[in-house]
C-alpha cells in the first residue's frame, strides 16, 4: 500500500483498532445470539412498570375524560402538548445523524446511526400518543385525515394542527423506511450466521433475499442518498411545523418568526443529549467501545454545545425582540416568564440549557463519561422545561387579565409522562435484543482496509 492510500485510510478510520470484518459481525450480533441476563430483565421490569403506571393513568383518562388532567381554561394545552413537543424533539437526533451527517460525509455517524434512528422511531411513536389522547376521544382521530367520510366533511388545510398530522406521520413513515432499508443487509448477515431454524426463517423473510450483489448495492446506495436527501429537509420541516402550532397563533410569546429555527435547534440539542446518554450505556454493556468510540461521543458533545448556544441565543433574542417591537403585551409576557409565577421553571430551563452545556468547552469534560452523562441529563430536563415554559406561561397569562390562571398538572398528567418514558425505554430494550443496534455493513465499510487502495488511479 502506498503512503497516500494509508493517509486516506487514517482519515476515515473511525473504528478503533483493526477489527476483522468477521469480528465486527461477532461483536454486534452477540446480544442477539445470547440469552438476556438478569440485569436485562430487571431493566425491562422497571420500564414495563413505568409503562404500566402510564397505562393505568391513560385508561382512567379515557374512561373519565380529560378532566383527569390539569388542563383547563386558559391553559388548554398543558402537559400533553409539552410532552409531545419534548418527544418529537428527542426524535430529531436520529434522522439528523443518519441523513444530514450522511450527506456531510461524516463517517463517524456509521457507528451510531442505526441506534439513533431506532430512538427516532420510538420517540416519534411516544410523541404520537400525546396529541392523539389530547383530542379527548382518540378513537375518533381518524377524522384528522382527509378521507371521504359519512359527514361529507373535509379537514382544514389552513390549520397548523393539521400540518402537524401530516408532518409527524410522514416523519415516522420515512424514518421507518430509512431504518428498514438500512437493516436489509444486516438481516442477510444474521440469516447467514444463525443456526436457529425459527430465527433463520424470520431473517430470511425480513432480509427479502438480499445477496450482497453489487448490482443491488448500486441501487441501494442511490436510494440511501435519495432518502437522505429527502429526510434532511423533512427533519427540519417537522419541528418547524411543530413550532407553527405556536407561531401561527397570535398569543404573546408564541407569535414570533424565530420559532422554527429555535425549535429545530432545541430538538437537535435534546435529541443528541438523549442519544449520547443511551449510547454511553450501550457501548459499555455490549462492549462496543471500539465501534462507538470516545471520539464519536466527543463529536456529539460538540454538537450539543453548538445547539445549546443556538438555543441560548434564541432565549436572548426573544427578549430583545419583545423590547424592540415596542408591543407592551409582548414585553410583559417575557418579563412574566423570567420573574412571574413560573420563574422557577424558566430558571431551571436557562441553567440546564445554557449554563451547564458551556462546560463542554473543556476537552477534558467532553471526554469524561460521567460528566457528559450528567450534562446530557441536565439538557433533557432543561429542554422539557423549555417546552413547559413556552406552552404554559403564554397561555396562563394572555391578553385578558381577568382570564389569567395558574396551571398545575395533576398526578394523572405525571403518571402519563412516566408512562411515556417507560414506553420509550421498553421499546429501546427490546430493540437492543432483537435487532443489531449498530449497522454491521456500514461499520465494515469504514474499518481499516475495507476500501480498495485504487493503486491504478
Amino acid at each position, binding site marked *: 500500500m502506498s503512503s497516500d492510500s494509508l493517509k486516506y485510510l487514517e482519515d476515515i478510520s473511525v473504528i478503533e483498532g483493526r477489527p*476483522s*470484518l468477521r469480528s465486527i459481525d461477532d461483536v454486534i450480533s452477540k446480544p442477539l445470539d445470547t440469552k438476556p441476563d438478569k440485569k436485562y430483565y430487571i431493566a425491562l421490569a422497571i420500564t414495563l412498570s413505568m409503562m404500566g403506571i402510564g397505562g393505568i393513568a391513560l385508561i382512567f383518562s*379515557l*374512561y*373519565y375524560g380529560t378532566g383527569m388532567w390539569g388542563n383547563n381554561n386558559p391553559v388548554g394545552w398543558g402537559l400533553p402538548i409539552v410532552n409531545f413537543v419534548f418527544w418529537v424533539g428527542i426524535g430529531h437526533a436520529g434522522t439528523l445523524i443518519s441523513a444530514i451527517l450522511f450527506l456531510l460525509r461524516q463517517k463517524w455517524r456509521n457507528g451510531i446511526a442505526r441506534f439513533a434512528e431506532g430512538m427516532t422511531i420510538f420517540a416519534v411513536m411516544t410523541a404520537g400518543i400525546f396529541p392523539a389522547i389530547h383530542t379527548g376521544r382518540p*378513537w375518533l382521530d381518524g377524522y384528522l385525515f382527509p378521507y371521504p367520510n359519512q359527514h*361529507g366533511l*373535509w379537514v*382544514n*388545510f*389552513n390549520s*397548523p394542527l*393539521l*400540518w402537524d398530522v*401530516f*408532518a409527524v406521520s*410522514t416523519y415516522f413513515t*420515512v424514518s421507518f*423506511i430509512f431504518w428498514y*432499508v438500512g437493516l436489509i*443487509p444486516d438481516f*442477510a*448477515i444474521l*440469516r*447467514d450466521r444463525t443456526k436457529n431454524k425459527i430465527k433463520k426463517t424470520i431473517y*430470511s*423473510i425480513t*432480509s*427479502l*433475499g*438480499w*445477496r*450482497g*450483489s*453489487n*448490482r*443491488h*448495492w*448500486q*441501487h*441501494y*446506495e*442511490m*436510494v440511501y442518498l*435519495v*432518502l437522505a436527501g*429527502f*429526510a434532511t429537509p*423533512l427533519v427540519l*420541516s417537522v419541528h418547524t*411545523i411543530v413550532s407553527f402550532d405556536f407561531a401561527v397563533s397570535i398569543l404573546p410569546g408564541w407569535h414570533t418568526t424565530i420559532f422554527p429555527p429555535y425549535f429545530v435547534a432545541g430538538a437537535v440539542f435534546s435529541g443528541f443529549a438523549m442519544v449520547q446518554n443511551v449510547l454511553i450505556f450501550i457501548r459499555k454493556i455490549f462492549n462496543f467501545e471500539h465501534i462507538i468510540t470516545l471520539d464519536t461521543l466527543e463529536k456529539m458533545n460538540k454538537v450539543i454545545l453548538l445547539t445549546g448556544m443556538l438555543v441560548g441565543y434564541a432565549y436572548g433574542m426573544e427578549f430583545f425582540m419583545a423590547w424592540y417591537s415596542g408591543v407592551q403585551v409582548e414585553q410583559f409576557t417575557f418579563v412574566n416568564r423570567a420573574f412571574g409565577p413560573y420563574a422557577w421553571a424558566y430558571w431551571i430551563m436557562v441553567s440546564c440549557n445554557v449554563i451547564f452545556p458551556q462546560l463542554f468547552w473543556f476537552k477534558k469534560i467532553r471526554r469524561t463519561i460521567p460528566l457528559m452523562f450528567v450534562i446530557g441529563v441536565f439538557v433533557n430536563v432543561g429542554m422539557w422545561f423549555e417546552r413547559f415554559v413556552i406552552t404554559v406561561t403564554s397561555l396562563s397569562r394572555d391578553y385578558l387579565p381577568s382570564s389569567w390562571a395558574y396551571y398545575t398538572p395533576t398526578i394523572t398528567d405525571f403518571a402519563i409522562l412516566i408512562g411515556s418514558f417507560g414506553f420509550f425505554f421498553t421499546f429501546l430494550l427490546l430493540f437492543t435484543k432483537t435487532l443489531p443496534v449498530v449497522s454491521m*455493513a*456500514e461499520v*465494515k*465499510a469504514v474499518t481499516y482496509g*475495507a*476500501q*480498495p487502495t*485504487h*493503486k491504478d488511479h
Partner: protein
Amino acid sequence: MDEKILYGYTGLFDTPDEIIEAANKTAESKFKKYDVHTPYPVHGMDDAMKLKPSRLPYVALVVGLSAMFGMLGFMYWISTVDYPVIVGGKPFFSFPAWVPVLFEITVLSASIATVVAMIAIFFKFPNISHPLHDTEFMKSVTSDKYGISIDVTDDENVEEAKAFLESIGAKNVTAIYWDNDEANFKNSVLQPKFLALLLVLVIGVSGATYFTLNKLMFMAPFNWMREQAKYIPQEKSTFFSDEFAMRNPVAGTVQRGLLPYKFTKKPEESAALINPLEVTKPNLALGKKKYDIYCSPCHGYFAEGDSRMRGQFPNPPSLHSEKVRNWSDGRIFNVLTDGQNVMPSYAYQLTRNERWAVILYVRALQRSLNAKESDLK
C-alpha cells in the same frame, strides 16, 4: 434422486483490491450474467463492473412531482369546490398555507415509491429461493469475503466459466445447483394453504369490523359521550322522595313576561278581555296558519263545522252562528285557553299571541259570510 440443474460457479477473494481487479476482468470477459457479492458497498465497484448509473432518482422525481400536483388538485377541489369554508378570512385557495402539507406529501410519496421500486422492480425482491442462498459462498460474502458468481444456466460450455474464475485468481471455486423443489415450484392461488389463509383473513377482518362498528363503539368509554353525569328528562332519581329527576317549579312561579291566566273556569268574566293584537296582514297570516293547523281538522277550513275527522271525533257546531259572532274576543279566548265541552285546551299548543291571532282570523272568516253593509261599498 433427480439430476440437479447447474446454476453456475462462484469464487471468493480476500481483499477489496483483488475483487476490484477481478470485477474489471470479468466485465471485459464474454460472461455477461455475472455478479459481484460484497459484505458492504466497495468504492469503485460500479466503474469496475461498468454499470450504468442507477435510474432510481427518476422514480423519486416523477412520483414526487405527481404526488405534489395530485395533492394540490385534491386540496383545491376540497377547499374551493366540495367544501368551501372561510377560515381566518383567507381565500378558499390559500396556497401559502398549503405548502407544508404539499411538502410532506411529496416527500412521503417519493420515499415510499423509491424504496418500493428498488425492492420490487430493481431487485425483484422478495426472492428467498435464489440458488445462491444457503451456500457457503453466500455465508462468506455477507460476512468478510468478496465473491464473484457467474450464471451459466443457459450456457453450454460450463467448464469455461470454472476455468475463467480460476484464471483470475478466485479461491474456493464451487458449482452451485438449483434446488429442485424451488426450481419446480409453481405458484398457484388455488393452493389449499393460501385459500385457508384467505378464509381466516376474511373471517378475522369482517368479524373485527362487525365487533368494532356494532359493539365496541357502544361500550363505555367509546359510546359517543352518551353516558354523562347528568339527568335527562323523564329520568328516575333516587335523590328526591318522589323519584323524579324532573322538578316542578316552586308554587307561585310566574313565567317571565306572562302573568297567569285569571279566568280559568270563569267564562263569563273573561268576556272583558280585549284582543291586544291589531288587524294587520302578518297577524292575520299567523292566525290563518295556526287555525289551519290546530282548528281546521274539526272546525273546517272555513269554520263551518265541516270536520275532516269522519266521525272519529264529534263535529263542533259552526262558528258562523249568531251566538259565536256575538261573543267578545275575550270569551273566545277563554274557550281556546280552557276548552269547552269536548274541545280540549289549546294553551299548550298555542301561545297567547297565537291564540289572539287565531281569533282575528276567525273574525275574518265570520265576516266573510256575514258581511256588514259597510263592507260592500
